[in-house]
Structure formats: structure tokens, C-alpha cells
């Protein structure tokens, strides 16, 4: 199928889900640009000549259908993707967190691997992230789902270095504990099976990276700074 038709189908699915229950909404992971995967160097550029099996649209497709290849088999095939699912509770109101996140240009301040985000119009943005060995990867993303003070979902579009999907959901934590921030992402490693195997070796990394980013966000918002010991004295 062509990428366009896949996307159309996603949108149809999405609209169906939007009318549906929360649980199915939660399964909506959308294509986003790359984030953590970038850290393991899995960009098309950093893995030249690795087959580059085109799997256009399938990341978001899996997200939409709730059909996750990883749960079904332990083997790796061209459908293999990396998923991240992390949450943090931040002692701030939902509205404040939503507003902050919705302005993507704030994100590089909070996420260590992002170099810049340029918002082009209400839905589209251009992302640049650092990759190992001084490289960068870039992609365009579009918002494909948005509920004020509740959910933002996005995916990569066009010729992205890393095809991926993500969503962030905000929920009031019980008992005055602030806001739960739930981040879900899925990446389709380029490079087909070889790329997937390579990614599997690093599987913890993307999830740890998102976790660290969420911690940094929490520290910035709650404590007003990110704790650090960089540059302190030591012996030797």
C-alpha cells in the first residue's frame, strides 16, 4: 500500500477511537520523530546500506490497531518496533503541564537529546535531535490528536530519519499529588531485520532516556533546577 493510503486509514481509525473508550484511546500511539531511538544511533544515515526495508505507516498502524508484534512473537521480523511506556507524577496542575508541552519549542530545554524544535504552523513542526558521534537526525512531525489538558499525539511525516509515533497523556493524580504524565512512543527501526536486531540490543536505552527526560522535567518544574554535580571538585 502507499504511505498516503496507510495514513488515511490511520486517521479513520483514530476518529473511530476518539468516539470510543479511554482504554482504546490509550492504545493510540502515533508516529513521532525519533527521540530516544536517536540515542542508539539508529538513523538511516548512521546505518548505511542496511537494507532500509520500507515499513511506511506500520508503526502508527500497530498503535492504532493495538496490534503489537512484540507481544505475539519473540522473533524479530520486519514489523519489529521499539516501544517506550513511561510515567512520572509532577507536583503541578494539569493545565500548566499541558500548556508547557503543547509548545513544542519548550521541549529541547527539558529533553536532553533534542537540539531544536521549530513549530511551522498549528500542527506541523521540525525536530532536530543529537545522535552519537556528533551526528544529528531531523524529521518533520505533525500533531494528529489533541485534547486540551489531556492528550497530545504526534507522528513523523515525510522522509523522516526514524519513523515513529508518540503520545503524552496528562491525568490529575489522586489525592492532590499533582499530574500524572504518561508518555508512550513507538519507533520503527530502519534497516529491517538487521536494524531491529541492533535496536534490540539497546532496548533499555530509549526507555531509560525517556525516563531521565521525564525526571528532568519534574525537577525543573518542582525544584526549579536540575540537580547536578558537574564541575564540582574531587581529588586525583
Amino acid at each position, binding site marked *: 500500500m502507499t504511505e498516503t493510503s496507510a495514513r488515511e486509514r490511520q486517521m479513520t481509525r483514530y476518529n473511530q477511537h476518539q468516539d470510543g473508550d479511554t482504554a482504546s484511546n490509550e492504545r493510540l500511539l502515533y508516529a513521532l520523530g525519533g527521540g530516544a531511538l536517536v540515542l542508539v544511533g539508529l538513523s538511516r544515515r548512521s546505518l548505511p546500506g542496511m537494507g532500509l526495508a520500507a515499513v511506511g505507516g506500520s508503526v502508527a498502524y500497530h498503535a492504532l490497531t493495538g496490534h503489537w508484534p512484540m507481544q505475539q512473537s519473540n522473533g524479530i521480523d520486519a514489523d519489529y518496533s521499539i516501544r517506550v511506556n513511561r510515567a512520572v507524577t509532577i507536583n503541578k496542575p494539569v493545565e500548566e503541564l499541558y500548556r508547557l508541552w503543547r509548545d513544542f519549542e519548550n521541549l529541547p530545554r527539558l529533553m536532553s537529546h533534542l537540539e531544536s524544535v521549530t513549530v511551522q504552523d498549528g500542527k506541523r513542526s521540525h525536530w532536530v535531535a543529537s545522535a552519537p558521534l556528533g551526528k544529528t537526525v531531523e524529521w518533520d512531525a505533525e500533531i494528529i490528536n489533541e485534547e486540551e489538558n489531556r492528550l497530545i499525539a504526534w507522528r513523523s511525516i515525510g522522509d523522516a530519519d526514524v519513523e515513529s509515533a508518540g503520545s503524552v497523556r496528562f491525568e490529575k493524580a489522586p489525592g492532590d499529588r499533582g499530574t500524572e504524565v504518561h508518555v508512550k512512543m513507538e519507533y520503527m527501526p530502519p534497516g529491517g531485520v538487521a536494524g531491529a536486531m541492533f535496536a534490540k540490543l539497546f532496548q533499555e536505552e530509549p526507555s531509560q532516556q525517556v*525516563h531521565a527526560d521525564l525526571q528532568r522535567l519534574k525537577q525543573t518544574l*518542582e*525544584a526549579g533546577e*536540575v540537580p*547536578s554535580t558537574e564541575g564540582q571538585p*574531587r*581529588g*586525583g
Partner: protein
Amino acid sequence: MKALCWYGKNDVRVETVPDPQIINPHDAIVKITSTAICGSDLHLYNGYIPTMQKGDILGHEFMGEVVEVGKEVKKLKVGDRVVVPFTISCGQCFFCQRELWSLCDNSNPNAWMAEKLYGYSPSALFGFSHMLGGYAGGQAEYARVPFADVGPLKLDNGGLTDDQVLFLSDIFPTGYMAAENANIEPGDTVAVWGAGPVGQFAIKSAYMLGAEQVIAIDRFPERLRLAETEGKARTINYEDTDVVEELKSLTGGRGPDSCIDAVGMEAHGTSPVAMLDKAKQMAKIETDRPNALREAIQACRKGGTVSVPGVYGGFIDSMPMGAIVNKALTLKSGQTHMQRYMRPLLERIQNGDIEPSFIITHHMKLEDAPNGYSMFRDKEDECVKVVLKP
């Protein structure tokens, strides 16, 4: 500046290192006037705490004068005299707002390390391994103090000496929280394992909180003597007798209502199980030696409380869970929630309720700190507490 650096087991050195700088906006730099060596430092010195790196500056009990503040520091000013708590807390998170200061969510830059070991990270501590923050400590001429408006206790220059207030940085609040955690009620007998500095403050605090009788357990005569004269405790030398039996007889067969383990992960012991613990710890198949804790659980009366200020780092074997369940014991622990106690205990000192300097046996220059470590570890020269002057 000069600072005491850790280089490995039994290897600490005073070296010249760069002065600390403000790194974050809520930091202050404190010029240290007094700093002490703690039983917790011995766990580092003896090589039992993971994630130490060569060159780490030790020390978490210190006080001094503020010489520089970051741009977001509102309450502290240059020139203020402060005691710095050993825990680092942001003041804003769920835990800080509930006064669970040693559980602060936001002060540990290496939270992920502690998460791997404990599930979640406690607050960072000064000079106490990278897993717990990796912050340079205060056995030095200067220290950088993060979240300076949240931690340090400002003192008016109302005549209290360093020796009188220094222990508000750790062991006095620690002994006090240990006693508070012991759920003491009028008429209670409290048994305290370990008559080191923490144990001594736990003894005094137990009386402050209404204990009828306190019994201290150790093997060093000078420490037991101190517990008797200063602490008004009865004492048991565990080398002379069976502690559990002796406690039974001292309590009319009931057992102590509360038991405090102020010994921690390097408990000494000669029983076969204790020897096995020691062997396992050396072979690195058990990280901590819990014989004082086991004894406390065994000795505690039914329905009583076991309070554990003693530090444990990892895993222990043969935990007498059966005794905990079947005697319906309560077990309480934690690094001290410092800010809860510093001001009220300062008032106790000002009122003359307690004179904390009673535990100091040695004053030394910072340069002599390596001697201080070995002397304190080996209890040479009846050493109970070493205070260093930079």
C-alpha cells in the same frame, strides 16, 4: 582548598583540590568551620558502600559560614552561620512537602542507580556514594550546598559554640528520630544496640520522649560508661553475656517494648551465624551483617517496635521474619528527615535540655583526618567522636 578524599578501602587522603563553585541557582558555598566523622563514613572507609569513585570528597556532618549564594537563594545571605543537614532536599516535591525530607524526589542526579537497587531513589546525601548523588562532602575547607534555602539551619550568633550545634547536622536528629520511630509510651523500656554517637543520642532522646528505662548494649567499656554517666542507661556488655536472656531478666521476663538498632551493616559478633555473615560479606554474597538487628528483633517484646537508624546498604540473610510476624512487631527505619528536627532540637540545646558536645573525644586538624578515621574505626584511645577543624 584541602579536602579529605576517598581512594578505596582503608585509603583516605587529604589533598588539595579546586574550590567548589556555584553550579545551580539555589546553591550556596559554605566555608567550613567544623566537620565530624560519622559511623556512616566508616561504611565507606571499610569499602561496603557501592558506587564510590576514587577522589570522592567525604563528609556529611558540617557547619560554617556562607560565603557565596546562587541567584535564586532568597533566605541565606553571605556571612550567615549555618549547620548543614546531611540530606539534600528540594523542598517542593511530594515527599518534602510531607516532611519526608530524606526521600526527596529531586535532589539525586544519579537517581537511576538507586532505582536499580531500591526501586526508587531516596534523597541525595553529601559525600555518600554516587548512587546517592555523588555530591562532594564537607570534610573540606569549603562545600557547595544545593537547595540552600531548604537545608541549612541558620544560627543567630547567640553564643552557642560549634561543638554544641555541629551534631544537628546528623547524629542528634538521627538519634532523636530513632527514638521517635520507637513509639515510646510512658513506662516503656527501650533497648539500644550500639553505644556509638547515634546510640548515645538515641538513649538521651528516648528519655526525652518519655521512656522509663533505657538499656544500652555494646562491648567497649568507655562507650558503655558514657551511656551510664551521660545517658543514665543501664548497660549490657554483649561479650559477657547472652543479650536476649539478659534483657529478659532486666525487664521481668517481658522484653524491651522498643528496640533500636544503632549499629547497622557492620555489626560485630562472635556467634556462628555472625561469623557466617562476615564470611558472606567478604565473599560479597551478602552485603550487610545484621546480627544486631536480628538480636533486636529476637529480644523485642510481643507487639513492640524495632527502630533501625543503623544504615544498611543492600541485602541481608536470615532475616527473622517469623519473629516479626508472629510477635506482631512494627519495624521502622529511614535516613533522618533532618529538617523536621533541626530547629526543635536547636531549641532543646538553647534551653539546656541537652549538651551535645558530651560525645566529642577528639578534636583534630583536617590534615589529620586519615588518622581520625583509623582511630575512630578501631576505637583507639577510647575514641567516640572526632571533630575536624579545617
